């Protein structure tokens, strides 16, 4: 239906795509796999008219087309969920979904009632209860992603392209999304699906195309591959283990959270994290996990309760004090909170350690650069120049910059919120190895993740949140998919 033939695309010196071909067929879900920076998002943007290929062409129903812009592709029936949510924060959710093609009443007016009804219907289909009338500002990343999904679905397009739609979602929403997509597929829609979670690829897709460094590596039916084959083709080598959890002996208590409450968001949250321990905070999307992390770090104020790091009490609402006490937070929204997108890689990494690279009052650029280069190498960052703005990096590489930025502060307690969101499987293993190593060195780690296997694979202890409260604490031995999920959905609190 939609196809790409020998397409190439360069950004300056970076060849993001070279001679890539790909064909989407009606009624078939096609997976696109590859490491971070392999060129997946670029391919998507080429198909959707955001970029024009430097060479090669886009074919629609076998005939070459030239999309002048995203609007033209949409006209042609191509709906896209971009990797990063692109919402209008000031407009209502319903308007976000229908921008540019609002249902009309007489005289070309907008029919708001119909618009809201349709939006509600879409959300019902996805099984979520987002109020279509609320402004998009303040939606959690997951909710934003869901609105994006609703937006794409509402187009009833012939071709549906999804760039990591599930990265911020947890099991339930993913399952629902897949149901909807499967229905669409059965109705004859062509689907292009990108994800770093291999099980999802195997569950949804019939065919897979693999990219490596912008080049086409393989394209074959999924049934011909095992997960290991897939990984091997993506990474170009065998992967040892995804969850290289080392066993460590927990040391003294590093972080104590006592009856922490932020009105209307979370209530009475108490736990502690010991040195060398990885504690996972699990729960459904919107359970308030990120909010707890933000409060601990001082980005949000808390209304009641205490936070102690290494026995020292933190004042509420001061990230600076939290950092001084040895706390670090890798936030969930890297584009808004984690990175200054316009600044260079080195400046971003340097931002948390301005003191450590000073000569007198003046910053030593050489020291700053060395530090950045060192961390870029340790995290295997893929970049052209350290002086490039981070917004030209691929999503996964951006995430690595955030990690580097915080690891460089040499924290005593590291809070990571969705540390592997949007990270490819090779790097994911890398991040996991890193976290495990850090724990081994005696750092206390609090990990928030919606990726259940990750939680189970990495955590020494699992705390489960449900609707703003801690619902359960499950030690590693007893942590299973069932036990965590039942606590997360509030079906039993017994484990606590």
């Amino acid at each position: 239906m939609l196809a790409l033939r020998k397409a190439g695309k360069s950004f300056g010196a970076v060849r993001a795509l070279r001679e890539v071909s790909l064909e989407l067929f009606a009624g078939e879900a096609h997976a696109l796999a590859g490491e971070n920076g392999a060129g997946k998002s670029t391919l998507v943007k080429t198909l959707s008219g955001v970029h024009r290929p430097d060479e090669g062409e886009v074919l629609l129903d076998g005939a070459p087309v030239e999309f002048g812009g995203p609007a033209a592709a949409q006209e042609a029936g191509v709906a896209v969920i971009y990797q990063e949510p692109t919402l209008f924060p000031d407009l209502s959710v319903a308007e976000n979904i229908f921008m540019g093609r609002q249902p009309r009443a007489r005289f070309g007016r907008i029919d708001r009632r119909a618009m809201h009804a349709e939006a509600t219907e879409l959300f019902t289909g996805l099984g979520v209860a987002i109020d279509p009338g609320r402004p998009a500002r303040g939606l959690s990343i997951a909710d934003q992603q869901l609105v994006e999904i609703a937006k794409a679905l509402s187009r009833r397009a012939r071709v549906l392209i999804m760039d990591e739609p599930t990265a911020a979602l947890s099991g339930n929403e993913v399952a629902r999304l897949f149901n909807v997509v499967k229905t669409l597929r059965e109705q004859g829609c062509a689907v292009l699906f990108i994800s770093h979670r291999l099980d999802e690829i195997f569950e949804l897709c019939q065919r897979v195309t693999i990219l490596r460094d912008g080049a086409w590596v393989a394209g074959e039916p999924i049934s011909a591959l095992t997960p290991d084959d897939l990984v091997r083709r993506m990474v170009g080598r065998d992967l040892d283990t995804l969850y290289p959890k080392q066993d460590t002996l927990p040391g003294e208590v590093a972080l104590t959270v006592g009856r922490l409450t932020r009105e209307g968001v979370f209530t009475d949250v108490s736990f502690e994290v010991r040195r060398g321990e990885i504690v996972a905070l699990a729960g459904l999307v919107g359970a308030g996990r990120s909010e707890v992390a933000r409060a601990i770090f001082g980005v949000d104020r808390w209304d009641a309760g205490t936070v102690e790091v290494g026995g020292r009490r933190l004042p509420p609402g001061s990230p600076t004090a939290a950092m001084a006490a040895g706390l670090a937070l890798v936030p969930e929204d890297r584009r808004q909170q984690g990175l200054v997108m316009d600044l260079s890689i080195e400046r971003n990494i340097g931002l948390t350690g301005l003191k450590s690279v000073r000569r007198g009052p003046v910053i030593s650029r050489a020291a700053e650069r060395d530090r950045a280069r060192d961390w870029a190498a340790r995290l295997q960052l893929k970049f052209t120049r350290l002086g490039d703005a981070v917004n030209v990096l691929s999503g996964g590489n951006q995430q690595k910059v955030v990690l580097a930025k915080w690891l460089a502060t040499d924290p005593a307690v590291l809070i990571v919120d969705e540390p592997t969101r949007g990270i490819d499987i090779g790097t994911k293993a890398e991040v996991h190895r890193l976290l495990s190593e850090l724990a081994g060195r005696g750092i206390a780690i609090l990990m928030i993740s919606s990726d259940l296997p990750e939680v189970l694979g990495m955590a020494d202890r699992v705390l489960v949140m449900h609707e703003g409260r801690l619902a359960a604490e499950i030690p590693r031995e007893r942590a299973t998919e069932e036990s965590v999920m039942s606590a997360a959905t509030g079906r039993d609190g017994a484990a606590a």
Partner: protein
Amino acid sequence: MTAVTADATPGGRSARGLVELVFRARELSLVAALAVLVLVTTAVNPNFLSGQGVKDIFLNTSILALLAVGQSLVVITRNIDLSVGSVVGLVAFCTGKFVSADPTGRGVLTALVFGVAIGAVCGLLNGLLVSFCRVPALVVTLGTLYVIQGLDHYIAHGQQINAVDLPPALLHLGNEGVLGVPYLPVITVVVMLAVGYYLRSYPSGRDFYAIGSSPEAARLAGVPVRRRVLAAYLFSGALAGLGGVLWLARFGTVVADPARGWELIVVSAVVVGGVAIVGGVGTVYGAVLGALLLTTIGSALVVLKVNSFWQQALTGALLLLAITVDRVLAVRVTRLLRKRSVRHGA
């Protein structure tokens, strides 16, 4: 949240009502402030609310409000137009020159067409530079502010348009009315209602908000960003042109640069009216109310016999008060919204 599906609508509706209320609240608080101001002033001096007094206030507001409507359209798209004041000056002078050259042959309609056309050309220039050449709006319009002002001075060069030279019909437009209602406010209200309705109820109107809210997302959503931004400037320019003609009609005598320094007054009217300076939020009704409030403050202080030297200070203080109250209110409601949405989720 995920588990709840069935009761999405009722909860949704109440939250939506709340959101609508927040937006209304901005305008309501302006109306309330206005009411307090008028009541206090009238209590001190009943003349303030006399027929003449009310007429004066509306007449005084009209041109500012007209400019505020144009400006809010631009500000909603996350841009700014600092050149409006100088466009008014240029148009007022040139139109005056133009019609006074042949006061019998060139009537009101010619004057309006001439003036609006000049304004539109200025707007077009701004718009092209901002949308197609991608020059930051502040730089462009500060630049055109200087250029247009210089041009105006160059053309005027110490001349003056006098009321005697103008066609009487034009002066009528500025000072008379139908059934006791002067034309000027009528024109402004009609423009305001038309633009307000368009912005709220037409897809292309919503585009302006989308662009201001997130230009990148707007592009991805297929909104013709450049065309809309161009349209906003064109419209703001044309309204400034209209304002210039009305200025001429109202004041009759025009020296080189009427409306000098008005760019900041117009922007304050828009901001007081609740249009976010960063785009995406606000209505033209609010902007017009903002203009009305500013003008009324000015008139009230004179009527209240406030020392001339205190007037400006008080105007500034009241402006700050207006935006502060608005802000505090917005924060309160947002907090309420947060607690509500969670309770609804729970």
